[in-house]
């Protein structure tokens, strides 16, 4: 019927319009937080011993001498033009940091998400199907432990086992030094994996992949615990549905009943949670990057926090917020595509 074709675009437009107030509120909160935080960014960046004239000059250049309303206007004006500010402790712009360090974090986050999804969905559907068996108990325990264990602790254990004892994998960094230099020269996207493929550097690609395993797995484990529990509960719930019995009554093979009917339907709420996990992934990335000396935006954030570089911190937090908003938008669209009923409600 015509209903099904007309509703998806309308749903998307409504959903997109909702982004505007969401982003506005987020940016305002970030702005206010940075203003109420103690300490003076100008004093901090100049080391606290600069003459008053220099401080005033710097303050004027950064626009801190304007009224709070005017600063608020400048902040939004800048973001609107893609200018998130320039560091007070170095000469780099926020955009530049996001492009370079952010690319490294993106690589790590995507790898972690892949690990989390493969492990989380796989284990979740398995123990949901075989609930209350020893397998189920083990799987649930695994989920709780990986979620509860500190990221840096898991990271250090991995380094001990796979690096120090087994010598299978590199301990830290995004690539070996030579590969690093080569790929930075080939900077097309700043994402090493992509750059290596574009420049046809297969040895480099392999090197980057090997470096990605431990940090990706460490961060992925943190997120996969949530998936395991969620998928398990959803699979158990879905297996009780009437259409599952109906499918069995038609002689549909059990593996198909579980995967096609129960698992797929159980995934709908999981997709929503993947969106929420983006936030966990970013905060986890800060710790993972520090543990594995990964040159990502999380490590950059800590560095700039230590330097009291408020402009940079504000810029990075703004970018984080925008990422979370975009991911949740994408997730809602994906949910609407998977579940025809969402488009109508």
């Amino acid at each position, binding site marked *: *019927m015509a*209903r*099904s074709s007309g509703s998806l675009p309308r749903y998307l437009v409504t959903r997109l319009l909702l982004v505007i107030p969401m982003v506005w509120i987020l940016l305002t909160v970030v702005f206010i937080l940075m203003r109420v935080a103690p300490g003076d960014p100008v004093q901090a960046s100049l080391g606290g011993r600069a003459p008053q004239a220099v401080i005033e000059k710097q303050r004027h250049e950064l626009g801190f001498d304007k009224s709070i309303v005017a600063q608020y206007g400048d902040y939004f004006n800048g973001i609107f033009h893609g200018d998130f500010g320039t560091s007070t402790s170095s000469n780099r712009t926020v955009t530049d940091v996001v492009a370079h360090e952010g690319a490294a974090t993106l690589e790590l986050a995507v790898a972690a998400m892949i690990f989390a999804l493969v492990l989380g969905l796989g284990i979740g559907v398995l123990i949901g199907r075989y609930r209350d068996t020893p397998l189920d108990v083990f799987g649930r325990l695994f989920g709780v432990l990986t979620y509860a264990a500190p990221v840096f602790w898991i990271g250090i254990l991995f380094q001990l086992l796979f690096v120090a004892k087994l010598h299978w994998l590199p301990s830290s960094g995004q690539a070996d030094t030579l590969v690093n230099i080569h790929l930075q020269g080939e900077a097309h996207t700043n994402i090493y994996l992509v750059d290596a493929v574009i420049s046809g550097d297969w040895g480099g690609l392999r090197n980057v992949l090997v470096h990605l395993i431990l940090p990706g797995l460490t961060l992925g484990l943190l997120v996969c615990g949530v998936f395991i529990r969620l998928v398990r509960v959803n699979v158990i719930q879905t297996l009780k*549905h*009437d*259409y599952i*019995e*109906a*499918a*069995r*009554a*038609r*002689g*549909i*093979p*059990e593996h*198909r009943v579980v995967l*096609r*009917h129960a698992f*797929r*339907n159980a995934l*709908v709420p999981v997709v929503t949670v993947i969106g929420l996990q983006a936030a966990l992934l970013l905060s986890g990335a800060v710790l993972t990057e520090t543990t594995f000396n990964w040159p990502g935006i999380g490590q950059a954030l800590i560095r700039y926090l230590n330097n009291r570089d408020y402009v940079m911190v504000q810029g990075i937090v703004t970018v984080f917020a925008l990422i979370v908003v975009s991911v949740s938008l994408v997730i809602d669209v994906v949910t609407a595509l*998977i*579940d*025809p*009923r969402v488009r*109508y409600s």
Partner: protein
Amino acid sequence: MTTTPELHHVRPDTVMSVRDLRIWYGTARGAVRAVDGVSFDIRRGETLGLVGESGCGKSTLGRGVLGLLPDAAKVAGHVLFEGEDLVGMSRRRLRSLRGPQLGLIFQEPMTRLNPLMRVSQHFLETLRTHQPELSKEQMRRRAIDTLGAMGIPPTRFTNYPHEFSGGMRQRIMIALALVLNPAFVVADEPTTALDVLVEAQILTILADVKRNFDTSILLITHNLGIIAEACERVAVMYAGRIAELGDARAVFARPAHPYTRELLASTISLSTTSLHYIPGAPPDLIAPPSGCRFHPRCPDAMTVCPQRHPPVVTTELNQDVACWLHGPDDQIPPGGSAPLEREAIGVADEA
């Protein structure tokens, strides 16, 4: 009565022969004997009605004959279908029979279709499972033809379940159960969730199916009107057992079992002036009454009734009935035909 299938006389046109079927569920309080020694035959192209109060084991029996019970259920007895016993059959073999040979039509059509799958996908999945040799176009044709016979136009083939009304979904479910033309179908209260006009439609469809494909149907319902309209024979179930089984018209005209009589008297129609009901409640299936399960509620109970379970006897009207009123007289102990004094028993029990 015979319990071994070999000894029992089976008519050649019998599609399914159920012998001494017992199904029970384990619970914390003890075993729930939902089906307790049920035997009946279904002939080719026949609709057998299965009627009884809620909780008497109708649905369990319907699922049991298809081997579709939850893992917690235990089954004993025989369900002979085309020479094979479905009880104790391998899951794999049973699965291959469901669809092409055995079908199930459900009570609530609203929730029986996967909300994320198009109607077309439901049909293609079923056909691909059982007849992988068909081409995709042949499968499509077949599905659309079956749906067409149920009054669902081809333009709706790729719609999602939520785009259909309850009556349409039930017709889709019926089409889905019949697309492989099974020999035997259980219809578990197929019209309970639908309004009367849709109910009439569905019953017409079931009658057409029976006529055109010679399908045997076990029609489970608590509605005696539906039985009268759609069934050749009827089995009246009480507390996990069949109280009476026979030609539907004969049973309705001259019910042999007091329970059937009371059930018929409780039916509400336009000429009803006062409500009749059977006193008491359906028995607890964990600890059912001794002897005849109906005796605590039976107006005609005799002293033999709580002592011994009545065997099945065939009346001169060819109705199979399990009630001491119909004998066999030689098995009733001396004085057993005296009316049951309920008060006396109640006091004696408490003493």
